């Protein structure tokens, strides 16, 4: 499955549709099951996603239908995969992050408070900026929820899951209210134990070269991706701040241009116009870097964690298998409960082998997906950077031509 990108039209800031967006997902599957998020509504503290399904599978009552789902219901579905023994041998597609509009809302509020201290034009401009930002975050969260569903729909085994079908089809509320405090605490402890376990299991050297290599690779890779993701976020934030400064500079130059009594007035107006345009391009560059680079890294941070979780589950199964072997040897030695020990050992063996087999394929697929996603996004990143730099260059050169000629 490919990392999905947002539809980037030529003028991002003027897009105001919340309707169906083009989804850059390479669906290897056929028309038997197609899922997308056809609409979304942002309310005060929640987002309502309209999940739209087209399917020729007999399990569904209709061929095309939609339901409304909220973030918690996606989490419920994801957790049900994670907790199921059946899927222990697969990389569970990472859950989409919670929609977070807090920062954006805070900025809009601050803007409202500072309304008195700026001119009407400045206020309108900044409001438009922030609204565009809000819209961008909104689109992103929709995309991330959609990618999760598409990954599940494309997975040969997960797509058949009953909970998934219920999620897609059941048109009532699934009543999976947010976890209460007690459950959250339980989760916390589960994770603590898991990570301690993880360390223990990771320490055991694997007999299988493939898995040994994967373990080493994933541990390091995950940490590096985490670092790169954080650093790319910081870089992009600075870029946005610089674009904001250019915005303010353009406004002040405009005021200077209207007030100046000398020949400079035309000069200032022209330069102000130039900076208005280049500023939009700079903001676009930051937005594209965010989509093609930062989001890519964030996604593979989550995916590599999911892959690590798979290795952990296999490791646990291996430990169980080895313990069962030891127990069998002991039972045979004492000649007590041998049959029971034999069945336990067989069950553990089967479980371990089943996981190992599917895990191997999953990890190979993970690599293929990762390489393809990076390739696509890096190529698109370079192409967009080039497009914007050329756009900027053209604006600058034409303005310089006019200004120099005006002597």
């Amino acid at each position, binding site marked *: 499955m490919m990392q999905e990108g947002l539809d980037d039209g030529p003028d991002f800031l003027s897009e105001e549709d919340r309707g169906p967006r083009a989804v850059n997902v390479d669906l290897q599957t056929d028309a038997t099951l197609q899922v997308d998020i056809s609409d979304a509504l942002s309310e005060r503290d929640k987002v309502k996603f309209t999940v739209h399904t087209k399917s020729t599978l007999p399990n569904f009552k209709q061929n095309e239908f939609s339901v409304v789902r909220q973030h918690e219901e996606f989490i419920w579905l994801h957790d049900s995969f994670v907790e199921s023994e059946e899927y222990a041998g697969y990389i569970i597609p990472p859950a989409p992050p919670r929609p977070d509009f807090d920062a954006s809302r805070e900025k809009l509020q601050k803007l409202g408070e500072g309304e008195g201290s700026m001119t009407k034009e400045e206020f309108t401009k900044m409001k438009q900026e922030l609204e565009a930002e809000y819209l961008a975050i909104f689109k992103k969260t929709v995309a991330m929820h959609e990618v999760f569903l598409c990954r599940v729909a494309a997975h040969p085994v997960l797509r058949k899951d009953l909970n998934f079908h219920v999620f897609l089809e059941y048109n009532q509320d699934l009543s999976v209210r947010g976890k209460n405090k007690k459950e959250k605490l339980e989760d916390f402890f589960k994770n603590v134990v898991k990570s301690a376990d993880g360390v223990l299991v990771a320490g055991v050297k694997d007999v299988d070269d493939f898995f040994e*290599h994967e373990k080493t*690779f994933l541990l*390091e*890779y995950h940490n*590096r*991706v985490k*670092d*790169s993701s954080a*650093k*790319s976020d*910081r*870089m992009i*934030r*600075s*870029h946005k*701040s*610089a674009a904001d*400064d*250019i915005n*303010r*500079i353009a406004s*002040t*130059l405009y*005021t*200077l241009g209207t*007030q*100046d*009594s*000398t*020949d*400079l007035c035309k*000069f200032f107006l022209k*330069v102000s116009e*130039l900076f208005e345009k*280049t500023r939009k391009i700079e903001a676009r560059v930051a937005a594209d870097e965010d989509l093609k680079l930062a989001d890519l890294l964030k996604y593979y941070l989550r995916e590599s964690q999911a892959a690590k979780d798979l290795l952990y589950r296999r490791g646990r199964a291996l430990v169980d298998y080895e313990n069962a072997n030891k127990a069998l040897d002991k039972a045979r030695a004492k000649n007590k409960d041998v049959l029971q020990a034999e069945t336990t050992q067989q069950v553990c063996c089967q479980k371990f082998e089943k996981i190992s087999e599917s895990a191997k394929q999953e990890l190979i697929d993970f*690599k293929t997906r*990762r*390489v393809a996603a*990076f*390739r696509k996004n*890096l*190529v698109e*990143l*370079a*192409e967009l*950077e*080039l497009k914007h*730099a*050329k756009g*900027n*260059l053209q604006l*600058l*050169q034409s*303005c*310089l031509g006019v*200004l*120099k000629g005006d*002597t």
Partner: protein
Amino acid sequence: MWFSWSPVAWCCLVSAEKDISPSSNGPKAEPVLFLCICAHMSILIVINFFVFLGDGMNAYMVYKVLTKTSLSIFSRDEVCVKRRFSDFLGLHSKLASKYMHMGYIVPPAPEKSIVGMTKVKVGKEDLSSVEFVEKRRSALERYLLRTVKHPALLKDPDVLQFLESSELPRAVSTQALSGAGILRMVNKAADAVNKMTIKMNESDAWFEEKQQQFDNLDVQLRKLHASVESLVCHRRELSVNTASFAKSAAMLGNSEDHTALSRALSQLAEVEEKIDQLHQDQACADFYLISELLGDYVRLITAVKGVFDQRMKTWAKCQDAQVMLQRKREAEAKLQHANKPDKLQQAKDEIREWEGKVQQGERDFEQISKNIRREVGRFEKDRVKDFRVVIIKYLESLVHTQQQLIKYWEAFLPEAKAIA
């Protein structure tokens, strides 16, 4: 690259063993302004080499001021002198006291900076000290260039002495001569204006209009300056964050086990590293071209407002003289009826004295009004030229940055496509 780097300037400030990587040095700003003066007046001033004398907190920086000229008022066509910062302040103080009350716009000297200088004295050889010294050198250069651009100041004996004579008496009480000192002088004039009991009846609309314009300009330039300073700050931040990301991407490339992708990620890291340098250079352009120019003009406009206030002060003096004359006349009229001949004579003398003062006051007021009109005309012409030259140069720097970006990404694109 249009920033030149002169390593010679640094060898006295830091010992040879210290490793200073190229990216940590602040590039020297080209004296952009001399380009417009040179063609005009055949004089070139460059402040180049400097040296740290003394030690500890008593240490001071000595600047070498090189003047090259074909003008006959100079005794030689090339002369180099050593000056310290307080000498510059001293020069400005002399010029301000001589010419400001006549309505001449005397270019303000650079600000004193105790914090900045202390860091340098204490031997902090980090990027901020390096930048501070370069910022000051550049500011002093611009100060002298603006001073000699003024036709009256150029001929002033103090200016000539400053540029030519090898020995200069040390300027005393430089606290009074600092930017704050001059501000105090300007504020005193403003206070005098505010205390005027009779508000000036402005018969000349030109002055009222011009004052309003300069007030507006002041507000907008300060705003612009603040935004540009913010931009400089964010671009520097961007440069640092890009460098940090580049390193991280290189590490990611190292840990990636798919060969072609690993190579592409390393290439991405290299591109980002080059871009970080680009951002740094651009931030320098933002700073040395635009930010410093705006800072200079904010201070210059304070000087302009100062001469307007001087005019009002002159008018007030003239008014006071008239009031005094009136009183003397009234006193004389009273004495006409009393029989005190010598007091009467004294009164008549005093009337003549004050008639003279009134005439002088009126002449002064006319003269300062005439001077200000001429000065403002010259100032505005220079302002137009300065801004045009600098903004065009700045846009050219932006063009260069975009051209480099295109080069880097064009080189990277095939690498990304090569991932198989």
